[in-house]
């Protein structure tokens, strides 16, 4: 279980996170949504240990992750903006990651490499790839080590419709009950097929935290976007 308790983070005067309390369970697909600047990415970066919260705690299976690093072997992260070292080729970065991260005789998950046909440009340097292609590479790396916790920050932004479908198929194919899956996105239609729980953030606070079924029940709407709009206006 991932327990986030009373998390605060301010960048100078701007309060990015203002007392976040959330508990995420194994087997859930969490959709983290909210307007721009609501603190989604900061929250995920805190979870990754890239950003240090001012106060509060994040615990993974009862032990705090702040100032720890070992827990990251369980995480696969797909960042919002695919920034890669310029000089490296795709295949070189893949080798580096494999070298550092691979456990003995663990099987690498190369499904997305094949599905996105990354072999075609594996000898090109990352700098020369287009934004969407880089995002595909980014996605393939996130899934490569079959992580227990998958953090996907705006995974479908910039992908073409066919790739989005490939990507969604991949997410559906993984054994959810053994994983944590945390996704942020503005494209709600991409989320509604896969997510089981909605966390809506606004101004660094959790506006609501409902399961998909609860949300549909309360609003009587089938479409995620309509359900959220209706829920927000009625509260």
């Amino acid at each position, binding site marked *: 279980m991932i327990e986030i308790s009373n998390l605060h983070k301010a960048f100078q005067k701007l309060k990015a996170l203002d007392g976040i309390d959330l508990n995420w369970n194994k087997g859930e697909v969490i959709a983290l949504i909210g307007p721009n600047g609501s603190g989604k990415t900061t929250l995920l970066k805190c979870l990754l240990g*890239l950003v240090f919260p001012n106060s509060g705690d994040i615990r993974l299976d009862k032990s705090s992750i702040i100032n720890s690093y070992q827990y990251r072997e369980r995480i696969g992260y797909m960042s919002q903006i695919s920034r890669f070292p*310029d000089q490296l080729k795709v295949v070189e970065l893949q080798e580096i990651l494999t070298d550092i991260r691979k456990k003995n005789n663990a099987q690498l998950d190369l499904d997305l490499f094949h599905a996105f046909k990354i072999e075609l440009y594996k000898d090109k340097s990352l700098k020369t790839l287009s934004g969407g292609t880089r995002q595909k590479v980014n996605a393939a790396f996130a899934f490569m080590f079959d992580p227990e916790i998958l953090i996907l920050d705006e995974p479908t932004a910039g992908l073409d419709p066919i790739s989005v479908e490939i990507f969604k198929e991949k997410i559906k194919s993984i054994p959810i009950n053994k994983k944590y899956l945390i996704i942020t996105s503005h494209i709600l239609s991409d989320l509604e097929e896969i997510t089981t729980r909605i966390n809506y953030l606004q101004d660094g606070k959790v506006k609501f935290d409902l399961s998909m079924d609860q949300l549909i029940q309360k609003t009587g709407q089938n479409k995620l976007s309509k359900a959220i709009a209706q829920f927000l206006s009625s509260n």
Partner: protein
Amino acid sequence: MLKIIKYFLLDILNNKVVLGLSLFFFIVSMSLLYLDENQNKAILSLMNIIFIVVPLISMFFSANYYWNSYEFKEILLCLPLKREKIILSEFIAVSLSISLSILVGLGVPCLIFGAETNIYYLILLAVILNISCVALSMWMVILTKDKSRGLGLVLLMWFYLTMLFDVLLISIMMNFSDYPLEKIVLVLASLNPIDLCRISMMLQLDISALMGYTGALYKEYFSGSGGSILSLSILMLWIIIPVYLFVKKFGQKDI
């Protein structure tokens, strides 16, 4: 950690700056040794160039490289690696590659000309100074938030170490020349690694004047073989303290 050092090193060696640096040092030392009949004089000119150029190169290069490898660090930080290890690896890789270019660029001409031992001492000092400057500049860069501010601070630091410090020191010595200044100057000199190197080299060469701005004034204060050991151990502090500071700072920095 060796793996991470290896990847940083490969990355640095890939962009050919190190090759250019080696070539630069090679040409400078080759021409000085070739043109000057008196090898001691050649070493002096070489020293004056090296103790100004090496800090500039190591500081500027490491500050620039910190930002160039930012994406790579971001990726590494998402892996199960200790933050301290990542930044230490970068530090080791950067200082190792510049040291390598100093060793090759200065060492090869010396071997060709069969130089005396003094020049090898100069090379040793240049390497130590380089490591210290890399550490200092990484600390500056990690302290600041963006690239331009970091580079600005680093250039300011270089300017301070090579010029401002000497001006300050001379003015102190001139204004308080009526008082006994030996101990104070000893302490003040240890506040600048470049001056420490100069003093150390001067003691090695056993000649007083012609030493840049403050050099000549130091001779009377640092005499005996103890001075050399003292200056070398203070130089070590100039490596250890900045390294400790930037490792600690990077451990708490938001990415």
